[in-house]
């Protein structure tokens, strides 16, 4: 009951944040620059510019312009994306977002699957060499230029592996188009690996899986560092507590103490860092998707930059803000559920 009230309150608190976000994109597009400038070419006459201004309400005072801006946004008119042949921004997002969502989800799963065990081992073997190496590795995660790491991954796992006669991984795209043509895929969620698995289309599944490994691993690198660091420190905290001493004193094996007793409590703070890590993952998307030619919204944003596609970049920004805010809301609610002490806070 109280949890529901907490969720409702958090949802209401989202409104000013999301309004503020649109206020920022509005300021960027209407105050920093003249929105008409995107219509200007060498042959645009001043009279025509005035007409455009009038037609779009750009001769009105700024608060009124903001009102129109919000009306358009809420009605689903996010403008057209120049870098995508003038398609509506929302159509572009609908087409490209599944690819990014798939990449981000796999990347987050990798972060959890690698970061939690690493952090645990590091805490259990505190100040041993495993710990030192892990801590250094984790710190290098937040210092890593992921676009560079992506090229190095391609160099090793694709180019060098092929030279050495080992099975090499693809470096571009989401799936081998020839495989996809031979085994047509029924679209359910838009995620190639998920859809092909559910419809038992194994050739496409294998191709999609091998295509996603390198970009997902690259994108996961920073997050692995974050998850490892937080798991280590919360594990150290938990291992000092009385109930762990008791579990050890009654003769339980180390494995049971760590993985059954300690990890359950140590993992709760890790959950909150996953929310932050989603932010890093989304921020890394334009870089990693560009390196791996991954046809998602990140690569779209990168292309939009090069063709001064302001509507595209703003659409991308608002979408990332929405996703980030929603993920953090879910994380907070899950945290409140798992840790009843914060529920009323």
């Amino acid at each position, binding site marked *: 009951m109280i949890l529901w009230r907490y969720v409702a309150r958090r949802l209401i608190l989202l409104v000013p944040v999301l309004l503020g976000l649109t206020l920022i994109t509005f300021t960027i597009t209407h105050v920093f620059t003249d929105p008409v400038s995107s219509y200007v070419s060498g042959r645009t006459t001043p009279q025509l510019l005035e007409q455009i201004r009038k037609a779009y309400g750009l001769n009105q005072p700024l608060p009124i312009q903001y009102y129109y801006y919000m009306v358009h946004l809420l009605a689903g008119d996010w403008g057209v994306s120049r870098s995508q042949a003038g398609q509506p921004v929302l159509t572009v997002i609908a087409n490209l977002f599944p690819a990014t969502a798939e990449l981000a989800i796999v990347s987050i799963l990798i972060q959890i699957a690698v970061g939690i065990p690493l952090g645990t081992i590091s805490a259990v073997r505190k100040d041993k060499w495993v710990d030192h190496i892990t801590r250094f590795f984790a710190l290098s995660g937040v210092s890593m*230029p992921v676009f560079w790491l992506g090229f190095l991954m391609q160099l090793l796992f694709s180019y060098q592996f092929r030279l050495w006669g080992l099975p090499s991984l693809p470096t571009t795209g989401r799936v081998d188009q020839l495989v996809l043509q031979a085994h047509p895929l029924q679209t359910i969620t838009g995620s190639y690996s998920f859809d092909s698995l559910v419809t038992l289309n194994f050739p496409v599944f294998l191709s999609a899986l091998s295509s996603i490994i390198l970009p997902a691993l690259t994108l996961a690198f920073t997050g692995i560092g974050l998850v490892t660091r937080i798991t280590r420190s919360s594990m150290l905290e938990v291992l000092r507590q009385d109930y762990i001493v008791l579990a050890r004193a009654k003769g339980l094996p180390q494995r049971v103490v760590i993985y059954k007793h300690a990890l359950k409590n140590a993992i709760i703070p890790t959950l909150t860092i996953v929310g932050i890590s989603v932010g890093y993952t989304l921020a890394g998307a334009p870089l990693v998707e560009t390196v791996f030619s991954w046809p998602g919204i990140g690569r779209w944003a990168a292309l939009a930059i090069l063709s001064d596609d302001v509507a595209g970049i703003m659409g991308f920004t608002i979408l990332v803000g929405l996703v980030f805010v929603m993920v953090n809301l879910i994380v907070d609610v899950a945290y409140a559920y798992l840790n009843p002490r914060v529920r009323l806070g």
Partner: protein
Amino acid sequence: MRRGTPRNKELEIRLRELKYSLYLLRQSLLTKVGIAISATVMVLALLAPIVAPYSPTTPNFAVKLQPPTFSHLLGTDQFGFDIFSRVLYAYRLDLEIAFAVVILGAVFGVVLGAFAGYVGGKTDESLMRLTDIFFAVPSLILALAVAAVLGRTFNGLVTALAITWWPSYARLIRGEVLTQKGKLYVDAAKAAGAGSRRIVLRHVLPNSIYPVLVNATLDLGQVILAAAGLSFLGFGVQPGTPELGRMVADSSSYVFNYPWVIAFPGLAILVISLGLNLLGDGLRDILDPRLRR
């Protein structure tokens, strides 16, 4: 005499503090590594015109795409540029961006945060809601959005990053001011007749400056990463400029056959960013009394 004694005492305490901090510093290997890396890179960047063996802007096609040798320590790229020389000049540029962004962001954030924290009430509330909005989008993405309309120039890049990098300072200093405001020494200063401005500037700010320093050090590393990332995508400097992210982008098509052309510029980003992060982490442990052992 009566005025002199407490001054000496204060100095003595400060000195003891400093000695203890230096002792803690000597104990921490990773912090020392961080200092060594950051200092070396900064000195090399500063001395680039003297240290760099070749010009960063005059191509020499006779020696293009050569692997590392003694005459070209990190090899040469597709234009015959000496990569070592270009990395040094690129460090100069990237550190310039990072310092400009962090100083702009920190000063703006500290002034705003201290003001809001001290005044309190509606001013404080609205500033905090404003920072909430900035935290609703990852900084790199927000910087990308701002840079998109400021144009793909050096100044556009610095401005965009500075606009997105101030809120953490505002929050940090506001929290500190709120903590310090309730302390006895502030009441004492007030009772002694000090005005609000004097209290904030002379008493509260000096006592809350360490966390800002730590945050700024960590941010230098993050800003270098962000700036390199944005330049990689095409913001900031023109293609061909010695900037680390730009160098990776410009040479990326040569990665398979001539790996050193992007391996070293990218490694250079990792090294300085890691050095600053190690330094920042270490400083936090040393300067934060709560973390002292």
